[in-house]
């Protein structure tokens, strides 16, 4: 946990340094008619840098005194997280191909079946019904266009929507 603290703080510091650097590049003084573009990022980056220096110093102090502390993720926790994260990444990649609603059908089916271990009837019912109603609400009633992907449009028109 303490190591993670240091690492995350260093990561934030990196963000601050990037903002700082870009602010310098864009110029942070007084431009023609007001603060130059880099003004805000410069000072924000500076602020982040200062704060993260404090955090890192403190964290290293504690680390030196008390050792690594609790582990960040408990036993088996990482597996659980990956079970959620990887399918989520997968479904969004799938969205690029066939569109969000169709991908959601598979995503829901996967989750309910594999993780929830429910009967096939429930799986199919839910994973078709939910995206269907979402599609009707958002696409037809609210008229918000949602990602259709490469082939999604044609598949949907096959299903005559």
């Amino acid at each position, binding site marked *: 946990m303490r190591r993670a603290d240091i690492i995350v703080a260093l990561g934030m510091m990196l963000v601050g340094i990037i903002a700082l650097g870009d602010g310098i590049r864009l110029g942070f003084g007084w431009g023609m008619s007001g603060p130059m573009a880099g003004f805000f990022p410069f000072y924000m980056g500076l602020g982040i840098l200062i704060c993260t220096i404090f955090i890192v110093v403190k964290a290293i102090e504690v680390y030196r005194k008390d050792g690594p502390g609790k582990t960040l993720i408990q036993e088996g926790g990482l597996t659980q997280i990956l079970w*959620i994260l990887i399918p989520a990444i997968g479904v969004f990649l799938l969205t690029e191909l066939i569109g969000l609603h169709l991908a959601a059908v598979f995503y829901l089916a*996967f989750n309910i079946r594999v993780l*929830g271990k429910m009967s096939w009837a429930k799986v199919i019912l839910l994973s078709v019904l939910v995206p269907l109603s979402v599609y009707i609400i958002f696409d037809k009633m609210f008229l918000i266009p*949602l990602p259709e992907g490469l082939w999604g449009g044609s598949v949907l028109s096959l299903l005559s929507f």
Partner: protein
Amino acid sequence: MGLQVALQPYNIMIACIGLVLGIVIGVLPGLGGANGVAILIPITFTMNPISAVILLACIYWGALYGGGICSILFNIPGEPWAVAATFDGYPMAKAGRAGKALVLSFLGHGVGEIFLTVEEGLKMEGVKAKVTFKDILEGLKELVIHAKVLVLGSLIGCWLGIQPGGATPASFKAYGFAKSSAKDKDQYGKGASSGIIAPEAAGHGAGTSATLPMITLGIPGSPTMAVIMGGLLIMGLQPGPMLFKEHPDFVWGLIGSIWVAHFLGLIIVMAFAPFFAAILRIKFSVLMPIIIYVCAIGAFAVNNRMIDIYYLLIFGVIGYLFKKLDYPIAPMVLALVLGSMAESTVRQALIMGRGNPLIFFRPSIALPLMLLAILLFVWPSISAWRKKIAAKQKTGGS
């Protein structure tokens, strides 16, 4: 006169429809008050202006309620200002008292709003809901116990809502005040009742008082108000002082219907509170993918870009790390909401001061505010430092 308009059956029906629509919109993460109102404006083109604004306003209130539902049940704030409600609402829900949490949130909302309509010059009647559920009874009892928090929260909300910035800072402020003046401080974060009442009362109070500057001065107090104002302009009604003179029936009809809608809203949401609480009993493996799915929709809908969905995942991971390492959420949310506003106003101030940073301290309004801000900023460090010194003195003296 206003009440006559508001209580016409057609308008009441419109109010109910608007409220339900608003709740649905507020509950769905990603589809917030401003979006929802904007999307539904075209529906109002065929209605008369009064009913149209009633509809839009009720969608707005409904969305305020809906955001609270989402925060309490899923720890996902449906709106930025609902984040404060997640602090205590979600633990309460997890402890099995979701119904109570919801009721408290709605009641806090309701009373906060009623305060506002009092400000607008109407007579106030007590909140007397027909009580049939044990949850509602308990909720009302708690409301009386925490009456001080309720009033304080509402007042904070009213005051902050009038200013641009809206409901988000109001709800956090109220939460902070309630927490620091509470007797059961360590209950906060674990399900303290006043931890819900305060931010919700403030949030709703602020949301309602945002109407004031919009109608009277034509300055929208929050993004959703800006959208509603746009709707008014489309209908040919110019908000501002002239509106009261030229279209008094419209203005008072609106105010009257806001009042009516508050009561209607209370009744509707309380009737449905157990229903919403039952949602929590759906298995996680079903609920979780649905939530991610709907969040992705919300993420995409902002800018119509796929990359926003990937950002969703990336920042989800980052947020997880932050949570694990106890980085506080509230400042980050405030920063996200107020950040771009802060940047543009700093810019404006600097231009006014021609580059001289002392501009922040010179005007007589700015100076005390800046000093106060600096004081609040260093206060935690100072008080921690003082505690250290006091402890050292004790051990040194004995």
